[in-house]
């Protein structure tokens, strides 16, 4: 936006660099102010918060990268071994980040993933401990029971294995808004409970609603949260408190040898790896979906889509029709077509040589967006890039995506959405308008036309919401999915406790 006199344009790469170079010493408070200049507006450092707000880091991938890097630091700088505090800490950072830019849903997604990660680590540890000291009565029984339950239910669960926490049928319900009477009750409940000694807690909370009686004591603290909280409106406090329960107990174990921080950081690094590899993983599916001599229509500048097409181009010849997505993404689009790289204007990521599609021998035809309908009758497949995928199978993508998808539907052309799982958000779009960001009207009508802008209300929506029924297929790094299946993947990746940050 305002490159100004600063040598480096603030952006993702400069942010990541500054993260690297900051010494480990600075306190957490400092670090947070790092991430939120609102409280300390005079700090001169680049902050992801302001970067987000000023849209200097924008679009899903940069946001995801910045958030993971930031959280890695937050965890790294975290002092102490109390998992509950760490959860609360991350949640706090997450809340700040998401409130800075609520429409970059990916930031929230990553925060939720990290929170889930911590819970996962804790649960795992608890299970281990439970297995180790089976002094408690029916512990082993419950353990086996819970394990069978897991195996039965979470077949598709990707990586993080744990016993109970992975699945609860109510998680799905938890994604939908239901009566909000439950949570408050529950909250006060658990609020009280926290003050009690752990053992008691587990008993009382079991006695609460419909829970499977005296299920393992150690896994217990988790169950209320999964089964008792059918709403997404569950207040964050209650959940953190609930986890606080098991974490208190955990404190005993941690003192011995359990390194929470290291495990979580490993997890976050895994997440970073996932972000790095996501495009290649998606692209691995390309040959299953593109046949030779196909005419494929796509839009905007998306590295995922480009990688996908390039992967197919290695084996097959086809034609790509590329909408330029004027007025907000056309420069990036032209850039991708010419150089094959989505450049954010950072001169420093030049080390990687990118190949445009055209260099791979693919015919690329660039068309203005208005031509979509005219061309669509000859297009075999539409591949859309996305900003965010929502849990109901709809997506938020660059403006123009809706009309492309609609035109494709009208012409019975299949619409394929290419997206990393990290863009998949547990948000249900009840107010679509809320998700739509409006951009600079100056790119629609140049400022030279001052009188025009004065008289006419110029709008520049940046995103479109595309309902699920216009999409035929999602291709993520986990493979291809029908839009109706996405809720399941959401449930696999986010803990219901974390849905509201």
């Amino acid at each position, binding site marked *: 936006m305002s490159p100004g006199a600063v040598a480096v344009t603030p952006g993702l790469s400069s942010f990541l660099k500054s993260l690297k170079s900051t010494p480990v010493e600075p306190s957490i408070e400092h670090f947070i102010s790092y991430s939120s200049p609102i409280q300390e507006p005079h700090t001169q450092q680049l902050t992801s918060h302001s970067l987000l707000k000023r849209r200097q880091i924008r679009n899903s991938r940069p946001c995801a990268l910045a958030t993971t890097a930031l959280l890695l630091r937050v965890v790294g700088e975290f002092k102490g071994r109390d998992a509950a505090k760490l959860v609360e800490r991350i949640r706090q950072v997450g809340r700040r980040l998401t409130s800075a830019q609520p429409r970059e849903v990916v930031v929230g997604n990553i925060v939720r993933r990290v929170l889930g990660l911590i819970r996962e680590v804790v649960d795992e540890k608890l299970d281990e401990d439970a297995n180790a000291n089976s002094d408690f009565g029916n512990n082993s029984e419950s353990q086996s029971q819970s394990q069978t339950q897991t195996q039965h239910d979470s077949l598709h669960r990707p990586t993080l294995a744990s016993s109970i926490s992975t699945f609860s049928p109510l998680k799905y319900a938890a994604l939908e808004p239901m009566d909000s009477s439950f949570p408050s009750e529950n909250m006060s409940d658990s609020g009280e409970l926290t003050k009690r000694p752990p053992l008691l807690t587990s008993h009382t909370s079991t006695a609460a609603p419909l829970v499977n009686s005296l299920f393992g004591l150690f896994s217990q603290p988790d169950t209320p949260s999964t089964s008792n909280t059918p709403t997404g409106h569950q207040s964050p406090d209650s959940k953190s408190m609930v986890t606080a329960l098991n974490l208190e107990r955990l404190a005993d174990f941690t003192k011995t040898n359990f390194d929470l921080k290291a495990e979580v950081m490993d997890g976050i690094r895994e997440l970073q790896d996932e972000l790095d590899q996501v495009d290649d993983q998606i692209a691995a599916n390309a040959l299953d979906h593109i046949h030779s*001599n196909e005419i494929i229509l796509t839009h905007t500048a998306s590295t995922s889509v480009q990688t996908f097409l390039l992967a197919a181009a290695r084996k097959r*010849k*086809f*034609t790509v*029709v590329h909408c330029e*997505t*004027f*007025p907000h993404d*056309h*420069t990036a689009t*032209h*850039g991708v077509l*010419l*150089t094959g790289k989505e*450049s954010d*204007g950072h*001169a420093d990521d*030049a080390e990687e040589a*990118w*190949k*445009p*599609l*055209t*260099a*791979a*021998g693919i*015919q*690329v*035809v*660039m*068309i*203005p*967006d*208005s*031509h*979509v*309908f*005219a*061309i669509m*009758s*000859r297009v075999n497949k539409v591949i859309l890039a996305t900003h965010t995928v929502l849990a109901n199978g709809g997506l938020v993508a660059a*403006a*123009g995506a*809706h*009309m492309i998808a*609609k*035109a494709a539907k*009208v012409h019975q052309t299949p619409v394929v959405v290419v997206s990393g799982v990290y863009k998949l958000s547990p948000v249900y779009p009840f107010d679509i308008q809320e998700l*739509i960001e409006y951009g600079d009207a100056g790119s*629609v009508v*140049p400022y030279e036309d001052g009188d*025009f802008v004065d*008289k*006419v*209300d*110029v*709008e*520049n*929506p940046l995103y*479109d919401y595309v309902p699920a029924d216009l999409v035929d297929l999602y291709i993520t790094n986990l493979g291809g999915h029908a839009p109706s299946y996405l809720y399941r993947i959401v449930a696999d990746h986010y803990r219901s406790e974390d849905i509201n940050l």
Partner: protein
Amino acid sequence: MSKTTEGEAVQPPAEKIAEGDLKPQTESKVEAGVEDKKPQAAETDRAPKLSAAELKKRKQAEKQARRAQAKGAGPSTSGPPTQQKGPAARDGPKQQKDAKQPAKEGQSRPLPARRRPSQSEVPVLEKAKKEVKKETKQQGLFFGHLYNQPRQHSMVGASKDVHPAVLALGLQYSSYVVCGSTARMVSMLLAFKAVIETYQTPVGTSLARHLTSHHLSPQIDYLRSCRPLSISMGNAIRWLKDIIIKIDPSTPEAQAKRDLLSEIDNFILQRITAADELIAETAAKKIEEGDVILTYASSSIVEKTLLRAHNAGVKFSVIVVDSKPLFEGKRLARDLANHGLKVKYLLITGASHAVRDASKVFLGAHAMMSNGRLYSRVGTALVSMLANDHSLPVIVLCESVKFTERVALDSIVGNEVAPADELLSESERKDLLPLKPFLPKSVTARADEKDKSEGGEEAKDSPEDVLKWIVDSPNLQMLQVLYDVTPAEYINMVITEYGSLPPSSVPVVHRLSTNI
């Protein structure tokens, strides 16, 4: 400068480009080579059968070549003529292929595009072939059949018979100064009035016989070379020819000319001015208090309607959806705002958002097809599709003079392509300049080479370079067509001077209006 010398001057770079193009495709060379021989054989087999059609094509090609040559002889510099000449000189082989198609295509009407990939891989055996290959790159996708004629952007090379008024008009057409089918038709008729006024029948012929074929047709040809004729223009020309033929040869020339001029005036008055009034009156009644009228691009008749409703005191607002590269809607939005209307302006990518707020859609037309489809500015189909999806009434305002007996199923068979370099505006090109270090080396190398050969040392970062990059990028092309066809089911009503009708009644009205 003669043609040959210039051709030589141009060739070396072209050759290099072609070679560069081929490099990434070497692996496909062998199989493509096999493919290539077959069509050639087929072509030669077929040649005798099609001689008539071919001759005609060849004649056309020659004509174009002559024109281009005449142009080359003009004062213009190295830039444009090379482009102009390229297609003209190469027209021979290409036209043959085109001529071959209709005969073969009876059974299926497949898209030329399906054949394209192999076409583009044709290995280059001789120099001439190389140039053909470069040519195929420039032709857009399956719109290749529309690229037959390069567009005229100057009056150089125009026939000496062309009247100055027509010359000026032609330039206005090609630069979109006069744009919109009604405006183009009216201005053409007015220019023809000037032509007729200065016309003098040569001795030995009659006005009825001579005027059309010898005096008007060069004008029409010139206009067509500037920009393909609109359907309304075609209709008007047909009408004018009809009138001229019907003139009694015994009428004295002055009288006949006076009659013709008044006929033309009458035509404009009846078919445009009065018709517009009627349409605006009918359509304005459709606008109710609190309506939000959505319109796409710019139509004079829609503007008239909106202003009439506004002046009648109806409170409503307007959403203008527009698209690049012409931004016609900008002028409409400004005019409406100047009249005190509340106007919102979006580009086509925001159309889904615009439709959500709208309550009615008014569209202008380039033409109404006899199968009820609307042929209009590209993007109209998208807007009407979205409006239909939201159950908004889509109302087309169209004078009956724009009705045609032609039918169309899609926007591809019949359309008008525009030069793709219009797509990137000056500022957009400027925005792309920082990409230079990221460009594939082949492209920049070529661009640099050109710079050096032109002697321009450090004139590097001119926005024009961006266009060069695109031209130099193998396999990359831009495509711009001007119209699209909106399916009849998206259109709820067509308002003409004959009244309001469903799109299915278009052919009926067309017959009515042409049989008067």
